[in-house]
């Protein structure tokens, strides 16, 4: 019983010592749900969203696609050519944009800044133009000298057109 009492004392001391740490890691869920996330999405030519309250954004990161909701861990991500999906509050359908690249920065206060050189609506993408541009880029890539600027330009064209193709349902 002495042993048992000693163990109980130890556990109490450990729990009490750990309590401040535990309190810090416990997130206040009702506050998180109420604040939501804010989206700033801009291009050089126009600002698409400034201070918009949205429920989720799915970002085509260069290291992989990821979703951002309120209280997401801060992230700085380079974007690849791909589809950016914005889920507005109270809606099941995502608003989609095809972005050429850029950066997405999620701050600790649940503000996400997305800055892209160009973003277009998926409906505006011309499948025929994308397929022919992909084929042209593929030939240019094969014809260019390995490691040259021409080959790099052809590779950019190939990757972007392939991503645009998959956004409209083509598999290039």
């Amino acid at each position, binding site marked *: 019983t002495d042993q048992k009492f000693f163990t109980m004392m130890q556990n109490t001391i450990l729990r009490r010592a750990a309590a401040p740490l535990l309190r810090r890691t416990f997130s206040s869920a009702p506050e998180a749900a109420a604040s939501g996330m804010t989206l700033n999405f801009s291009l050089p030519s126009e600002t698409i969203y400034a201070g918009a309250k949205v429920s989720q954004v799915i970002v085509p990161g260069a290291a992989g696609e990821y979703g951002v909701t309120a209280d997401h861990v801060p992230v700085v991500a380079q974007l690849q*050519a791909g589809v950016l999906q914005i889920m507005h509050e109270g809606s099941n359908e995502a608003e989609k944009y095809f972005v050429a*690249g850029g950066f997405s920065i999620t701050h600790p206060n649940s503000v996400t800044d997305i800055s892209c050189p160009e973003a277009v609506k998926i409906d*505006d*993408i*011309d499948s025929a*133009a994308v397929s022919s541009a992909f084929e042209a880029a593929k030939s240019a890539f094969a014809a260019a000298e390995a490691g040259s600027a021409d080959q790099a330009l052809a590779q950019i064209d190939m990757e972007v057109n392939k991503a645009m193709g998959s956004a409209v349902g083509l598999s290039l």
Partner: protein
Amino acid sequence: MSTPTTFWRIAGMSYTQYVTRAATAVRNGLKEPAKTKALQHETFSYNAASWEAGKIGPKKQVNKLTNAGISV
């Protein structure tokens, strides 16, 4: 970051050159009314003027820096 790892760095391009090329590729893949509007985003021109004795001369629009006598 001394060893280039991306294909565009290895080929001597900067990130800005890479991403503007990607943006051009996106604009060229659009359907017509959107395409003309988007291609306007990438047009640019320069005005060149010479300074003489502290005064700026007349501005002339040039579409390439080499036409203004600036070697790029």
